[in-house]
């Protein structure tokens, strides 16, 4: 019991670090395209780790299923939205940062 | 002074901010935004007061009223936006001009 709790906490903390990395990237990266990189990839891993940490604590299969469903939906949404934002930026003629 | 009164005051601050913006801005879209902020302020006061009694569950009646209010607010916004587009189609601008105010 204790092992899963420790593992779960470690996963949650790791997840939070990735969210922080995504935010730092959002602030530090120079243009819209590079910021999208930071958001999609770091937040995907961050949420994945948080979900994994919570699944370890889940009381039942349905709760674990719900968490997994949330992760998949966010994955789908963030990948699609990143593509749409990048496409809109290209259409608007925003140049790449060199 | 607990957090309930904090939120009540924030709610009234939002209401006042919104009211100021409604009066000052000429652009209709900004007026619509401002009215929405005013509405949020009112809702905030209502729900904060519903949670006023420490230790008991919050009063569900204001909650239900606020849900009703949110739905009415979105429909009012939709109608206002449609009217704004109509004004724009008729007059060529979506603002209440200075002349019409005087």
């Amino acid at each position, binding site marked *: 019991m204790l092992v899963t709790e420790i593992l779960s906490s470690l996963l949650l903390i790791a997840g939070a670090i990735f969210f922080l990395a995504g935010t730092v990237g959002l602030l530090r990266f120079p243009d819209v395209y590079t910021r999208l990189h930071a958001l999609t990839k770091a937040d995907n891993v961050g949420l994945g780790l948080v979900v994994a940490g919570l699944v370890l604590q889940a009381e039942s299969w349905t709760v674990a299923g719900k968490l997994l469903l949330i992760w998949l939906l966010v994955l789908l949404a963030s990948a699609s939205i990143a593509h749409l934002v990048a496409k809109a930026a290209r259409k608007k003629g925003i140049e790449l940062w060199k | 002074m607990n957090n309930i009164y904090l939120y009540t005051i924030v709610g009234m601050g939002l209401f006042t901010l919104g009211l100021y913006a409604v009066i000052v801005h000429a652009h209709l879209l900004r007026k619509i935004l401002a009215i929405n902020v005013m509405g*949020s302020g009112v809702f905030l006061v209502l729900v904060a007061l*519903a949670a006023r009694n420490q230790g008991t569950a919050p*009063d569900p009646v204001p909650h239900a*009223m606020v849900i009703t209010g*949110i739905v009415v607010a979105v429909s009012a916004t939709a109608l206002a936006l449609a009217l704004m587009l109509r004004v724009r189609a008729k007059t060529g601008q979506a603002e209440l001009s200075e002349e019409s105010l005087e």
Partner: protein
Amino acid sequence: MTLLQLMFDTLLGFSLLWLAWQALTSPDLFRAIVLFIAFGLLMALTWIRLDAPDVAMAEASIGAGLTGALLLSALARLGSKNGSRAILEKKHQAGSMTENTKNQLPFRLLLMVLLLAVAAGLVYVVLTLPENIPGLGILVEENLESSGVSNPVTAVLLNYRGYDTLLELSVLLLTLLGVWSLGDMTKQHESFPGPVLSTLSRLLVPLLIMAAGYLLWVGAHAPGGAFQAGSLLGAAGVLLLLAGWRPGTRLAGLPLRISLVLGVAAFVAAGMVFILLGRQFLEYPPSFAGVLILLIEAAATLSIGITLAALFLGGRPKFSQPKFSRPKLNQPKSSQPKFRRHK
């Protein structure tokens, strides 16, 4: 209350005020709307802090989501017509504005003083309210068993204050009629939104339907209910519309109209049936209340969802005329009014 909680509440409160201020003063309208959406999401967080999860769900989906979508689509329509001219006009106005604001300065100062007085008055009234008033919460709790549901908010919405909810559904319907009477759906030559958005909407719409059904069911005993479910259905509709789907002429006729009034109709019907049995309007016998509320909510969910999506569409969709259209008596054909679409 711990210090940490107080800090969080203070931060949240200030963020709300700051975001509202930014949204209302930002010179760029697009930016203003995006900030307003962020404001809506923080409001949802605030509802959670105030123990109102039902309200939080309604706020996140309607207050932030649908209102944001409506505002953005209206902004796009504002900009699409002679956009460059509007910008020129604005620049011109900005020049004259500075002069005006100089003249307006005393007026603005006066306004601020007046508004500060209003705010102070409001704060005084609230802070001097009597403490520990039981409110209606106890009454709701005592009668919960006879309401047919165990979520107090749903009980208030669909049973105790059924009148309010019925009228609210009517307001929603009236709004749509108002929007429709302002003109037909504008023929927008939107470009094909691209396969990614199209696929996203095709994947998400069935899942949104599932989620709406779930909220409808769970509303009886936990946060959720017809309004939250309806707004999810509305969101599904908005997604479909964004991906280029338009109701066909057959669908936009009678089927659309029936589904729009279904909520109000079911509500009124449920109220009327028991008048015949010697009860009052909207007074349900406790043994039937649960099933009745579920039926009304199912109809209301459908109506709310479709009404919200139709509001996003922004005008009456084209529908095929019924085949049996009769010519009007005593009126020669030539004198019938000809409708012309305004530019």
